[in-house]
């Protein structure tokens, strides 16, 4: 155990801090989530890449900074940007999922063509994986690509495509080999979002916002060479990046920030003229949550160390999504309980606090618990991969064709 970073890293930290002071004025307000990056965001992104604070380990020839991977430096960057409340680099699905996939499985030509403009924010991607009938059982997806000359004609529907409205391109899982077993009939296609036959419809969630979209394909023509990896290997290509997504959900530092926000709120808000913090039950819940927040933070440090040392983490690595999402949701629950009637206000109501963010989080976090592998799927994974427990036996009468149709 040594929780200091050592001189080399402290020097690096100082460098980052200096950058954040020197370039403070050029930072955009926020990085813009699922929208199209604004001009100032693109400028900021280029600045970050230039200094090695974005696209840090991506080779220079593809538009990155070209540094050796160093998890501690990445963490320092993230820590300092968070501490300074400055936006980090673009982290849309193109940058965080498609680029890593290309680097691992793309051809040289594909890398040359796509990585740089994606990193720079000039090309925005959206992900086409989930379908209404294929959630937990993603490999049962039914969007079809049928051969038509040199092209596939894509028909079907995707859901949960967060960036679809502003995206230039989609990376998409399509069933191109209808006769192959379900995991082996999928190809990973890419195509422009303005291809004829694509319709994007906003998907309103329980929060009242359209954080996601549905995308419908009617005879969308995609050249057969717009494939990443081999034909029929799309499942395996996609899994290379799904891991990235799983790591993103349940960030322990986010939980720490939430805890601090709630603490402050409970010091300020009153009921019957008494601070919420003076209510012993709410306070006890806060301390209980602090136990869990600290636990997950330290757990994150342990996993980080293991990754630096390239050690496998076993069950310790598999529980992060389940525990992290649940913790965030429970934090939001305390916030809305503490605020009581004021906590149910929403959507710009008079007296609403913090733009209703706690209610938004309480609902959106439930979506995160469900999305990217429900809690039930996570527990399957933990028991099977982490504890080496047996998979459920297959049912006597599998009826794949029929079942898939009605799923």
């Amino acid at each position, binding site marked *: 155990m040594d929780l200091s970073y050592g001189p080399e890293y402290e020097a690096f930290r100082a460098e980052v801090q200096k950058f954040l002071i020197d370039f403070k004025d050029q930072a955009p307000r926020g990085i813009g989530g699922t929208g199209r990056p604004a001009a100032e965001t693109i400028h900021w992104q280029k600045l970050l890449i230039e200094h090695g604070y974005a696209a840090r380990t991506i080779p220079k020839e593809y538009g990155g900074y070209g540094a050796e991977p160093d998890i501690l430096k990445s963490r320092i960057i993230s820590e300092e940007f968070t501490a300074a409340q400055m936006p980090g680099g673009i982290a849309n699905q193109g940058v965080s999922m498609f680029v890593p996939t290309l680097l691992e499985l793309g051809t040289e030509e594909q890398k040359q063509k796509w990585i740089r403009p994606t990193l720079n924010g000039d090309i925005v991607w959206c992900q086409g994986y989930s379908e209404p009938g294929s959630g937990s059982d993603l490999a*049962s997806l039914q969007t079809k690509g049928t051969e038509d000359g040199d092209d596939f004609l894509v028909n079907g529907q995707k859901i949960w495509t967060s960036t679809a409205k502003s995206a230039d391109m989609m990376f998409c899982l399509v069933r191109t080999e209808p006769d192959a077993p379900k995991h082996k009939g999928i190809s990973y296609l890419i195509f422009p979002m303005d291809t004829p036959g694509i319709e994007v419809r906003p998907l309103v*969630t329980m929060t009242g916002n359209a954080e996601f979209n549905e995308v419908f394909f009617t005879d969308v023509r995609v050249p057969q060479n717009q494939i990443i990896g081999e034909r029929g290997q799309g499942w395996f290509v996609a899994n290379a990046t799904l891991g990235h997504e799983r790591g993103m959900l349940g960030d322990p530092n986010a939980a720490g920030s939430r805890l601090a926000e709630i603490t402050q709120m409970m010091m300020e808000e009153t009921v019957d003229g008494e601070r919420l913090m003076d209510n012993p039950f709410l306070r006890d819940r806060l301390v209980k949550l602090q136990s869990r927040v600290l636990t997950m933070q330290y757990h994150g440090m342990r996993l980080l160390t293991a990754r630096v040392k390239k050690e496998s983490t076993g069950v310790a690595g598999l529980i992060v999504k389940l525990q992290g999402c649940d913790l965030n949701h429970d934090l939001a629950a305390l916030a809305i309980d503490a605020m009581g009637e004021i906590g149910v206000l929403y959507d710009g109501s008079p007296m609403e606090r913090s733009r209703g963010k706690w209610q938004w989080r309480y609902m959106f976090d439930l979506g995160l618990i469900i999305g990217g592998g429900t809690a039930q799927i996570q527990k399957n994974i933990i028991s099977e991969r982490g504890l080496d427990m047996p998979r459920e036996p297959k049912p006597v009468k599998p009826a*794949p064709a029929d079942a898939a149709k009605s799923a």
Partner: protein
Amino acid sequence: MEFALSEEQKMLQDSVGRYLETACSLDVVRGVAEKSGLQADDVWSGLIDLGVPSMMVPEAYGGMAFGMLEAALVSEVMGRHVAAVPFIGACVLGPLAIARGGSDALKEAWLPKIATGAIRVGVALSEHTGAREDAGITAEGDRLSGRSLFVIDGGMADIFVVADTQGGLHLIEAGAEGVETIALTSIDRTRSLSEIRLTKVVSQPLDGGEDVLASLIDAGRVLYAADTLGAGWAMIDKAVAYAKERKQFNRVIGSFQSVKHMCAEMAAELEPCRSLIWYAAYAQDALPDDARLTAGHAKSHLSEVGRFVARTSTEVHGGMGFTDLLGLHYWFKRIGVNRQILGGPERVREELAKLQGWAA
């Protein structure tokens, strides 16, 4: 000893329930919610035809003079159908306050109109279950001033029953000089909450003071709890139905033990609460010694069980539960608001401890 509903009570609940099933469809609820807190006018008219606004009005004033058990049974079906109409304040607490505390003249003036649904009552007493922002109404002579928050059914109220900080109850007209009404928007768009700001508003006293106020709070707690019971069972039924239809991995997800157990746990937690609601509602009229105690338990316990059911049902629905498509969130949000109005569970439990001499 008969711990069961009478045939009349079952019929009442069935008839309101069947009516809402048809009239208060998801489309109707959605229509109201998306137009931000107005009531479903047709549904309100239909409920007038069924006599719902007259339920709690004494017979002498044209009402049906039902008890709290009947009110709770109706509240349950309101929750089951996330009915976008005023009920707890307008049809129960309001008329009860006037019937219990009003002078003959006041009763004569208002109760017949309440019974016909011609006017609606907003109920302003949230400062007695936790004053936020130091709000409160003070009475000087017959004039009321101050703020009251989270007024129940305040949005379309013609008159308000208002509690002052001393526990006195008053009646004011919404159109009187010095009344400002501010609509609040909560996550639950099916029911109205408001703030009222009063500046020397002419009022008429309701007698009975703190006893009546306490009985209104108790009644309200039972009704919010009953609403959660109805909304919660709707969410369980929806989860079970969805789990029997939705397939993943070549099986309906309802055949996975984890999904089955989630549904079983919801039912196991919620179904016994029906008996708690029945008892608490019955106690309001028949068992004065148990009235406060069981109202508080109903409110706090249904708040906790309701939260569990709301979350679990959403999880059983997977991504679909999280979208707006099935409208499941209307139930989720209704349960969320029921938890907080008239006192969240932590507060109510502390009141129960005090009531029993367990806390100072």
